[in-house]
């Protein structure tokens, strides 16, 4: 096991656009330790989501290197990168993206089944996770029957279902009111305390304040770093 979950050097991402290329990420170098909680902040359009997508291997950099767990996974075939995302990286989205036709229970169980967990394992883990996020009573409810905060809690349970090494969250409280956002922030704190590395992109100073380490971005670059 590597000393870093993530290590980037000179990471750059350019989008070719009709009006000329847009460089969303410029020469970004930093690393994340296995027990770190990192918040990425910065104005809209500064490249936060782009960075997160590269970290989560849902997109590839134009140049620079990114090591996941000490390994360059960018050149791996799609199937293998999917497998790494499935088992080692958790994603939490601003818009939750729970599957509307599945219950909370099924949404949390889904990635476990895909990873090949047995029925008994899935049952135990799903029950544990729903309890963990305080939604045991809502197991049979569909996303449409849950509030935004509840949906995000289910999404977090889903993201950590396969015990990933790294949890990535893009504006996890962006759609929620302040007090619900606080609840999500507390949940992320607990996930971190249980030993997950977390990188969270946020506009919300309250969330950012909880992270031990804060990266400030501007125009595709990390311009400041602060530690608590």
């Amino acid at each position, binding site marked *: 096991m590597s000393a870093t979950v993530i290590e980037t050097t000179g990471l750059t991402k350019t989008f070719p656009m009709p009006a000329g290329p847009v460089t969303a990420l410029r020469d970004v170098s930093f690393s994340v330790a296995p027990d770190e909680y990192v918040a990425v902040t910065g104005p809209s359009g500064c490249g936060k989501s782009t960075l997160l997508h590269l970290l989560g291997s849902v997109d590839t950099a134009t140049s620079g290197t990114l090591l996941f767990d000490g390994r360059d996974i960018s050149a791996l075939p799609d*199937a293998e990168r*999917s497998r790494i*995302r499935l088992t080692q990286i958790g994603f939490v989205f601003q818009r939750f*993206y729970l599957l509307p036709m599945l219950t909370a229970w099924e949404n949390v169980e889904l990635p476990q089944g895909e990873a090949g967990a047995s029925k008994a394992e899935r049952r135990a883990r799903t029950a544990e996770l729903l309890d963990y996020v305080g939604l045991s009573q809502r197991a049979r409810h569909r996303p449409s029957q849950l509030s935004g905060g509840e949906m995000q809690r289910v999404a977090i349970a889903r993201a950590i279902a396969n015990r990933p090494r790294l949890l990535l969250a893009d504006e996890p409280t962006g759609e929620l009111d302040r007090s619900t956002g606080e609840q999500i922030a507390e949940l992320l704190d607990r996930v971190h305390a249980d030993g997950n590395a977390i990188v969270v992109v946020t506009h919300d100073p309250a969330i950012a304040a909880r992270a031990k380490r804060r990266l400030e971005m501007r125009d595709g670059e990390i311009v400041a770093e602060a530690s608590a």
Partner: protein
Amino acid sequence: MNSFYFAWRSLFRQPVRAALAIAGVAAIGALLFDMLLLSQGMLISFRDLLDDVGFDIRIMATASTPISGPRMADAAATAAAVEALPEIDAVVPMRIGQARIVGPDSVNLTLIGSVTSSRDAWTVVEGVDLDAIVGSDHPPLVINRNVAEELALVPGATVTVRSECSERYSVLPTVDFVVSGIAEFPFDPVDQMTAAVAMPDFDRACGSVMDEADVFLVASRAGEYPEMAVKAITRLRPDLHAYSNAQLVDRFQQVGFSYFRQISTVLATITLFFAFLLISALLTVSVNQRFAEIAALRALGFSRRRIATDLLWESILMVGTGGLLALPLGLALATWLDRILKAMPGLPGDLHFFVLHPAAVATYVALLSTAGVLAAAYPVFLASRLPMASTLRNEVVG
């Protein structure tokens, strides 16, 4: 959750949409199925009809259909010679002419002259066959149900027949017959009037011993290929035209029925294309609505292959359910259409246009499955090539 169950849940997340899709596939599938039943139906029905009669070879004077062609002379001797061939079991000469039952109520009918044997060209359903009448004042005659009902005849009744079989006499004398039984003639159209008598009585009604036949019905010996028997007959009598049932079916396929086949092939192709378009459009629309969801699943680690399998199952479910419902629907429609087409005059009552046969079902399943898989190709392509990052981003920004 396996792909199949996942696809099931995906499909039925919008039950009305799923129901409409399945109903659409069912409707198109029913049409496709009917076209397949139609393309072979008449041939199969014709073959069954020929086979059911119990004779597998027909000998005629010309290559054209009987009745219209010239007759074959020396019927009795020819029949005996052919029957003597080792490949042949039985030969029944047959004359077909026109006659009139005269009296207070009279009807025009087709009069068949034949010899009775263990194999008859008809099936007695009431009373007895011709050869069961001995020592009667009048020669026997069997009539079909239409004649019996038209003239209120029962076995034992006497009728007076005036034959119109000969060109030599303008008006022939009448002959009295006793009705021995009521029979079914396999090639009778529904409103056909038919009667049959023994060959000597046919000649007597015609006013002279002609010893002619319009057609010989031949049964090959069990275990022989009818085609071999046909070759033997042709060697014996190159001047005559012998056809096995299969050869007759082939001839009809080339002339009369090819037209049904063409129509049904064209319509089946069009229907299949509609099925493809419908499924493809439905799946594509549904994939388009789910871009964000699919991108999120990919980000969570679902492979392209898994996404593709889910969609393929969704297509299979839609096509499978609709296609299955299409079978009873298609059968009901076929029965109805068959009844309409059979109202055409002059067709044998047992001839059908739409016939259910295993090959049609197999072709139907194969065609529809192919359409379902092909229709899923484009949406599967869209979904598995979806760029995750920009899709997730567009959903938040847009």
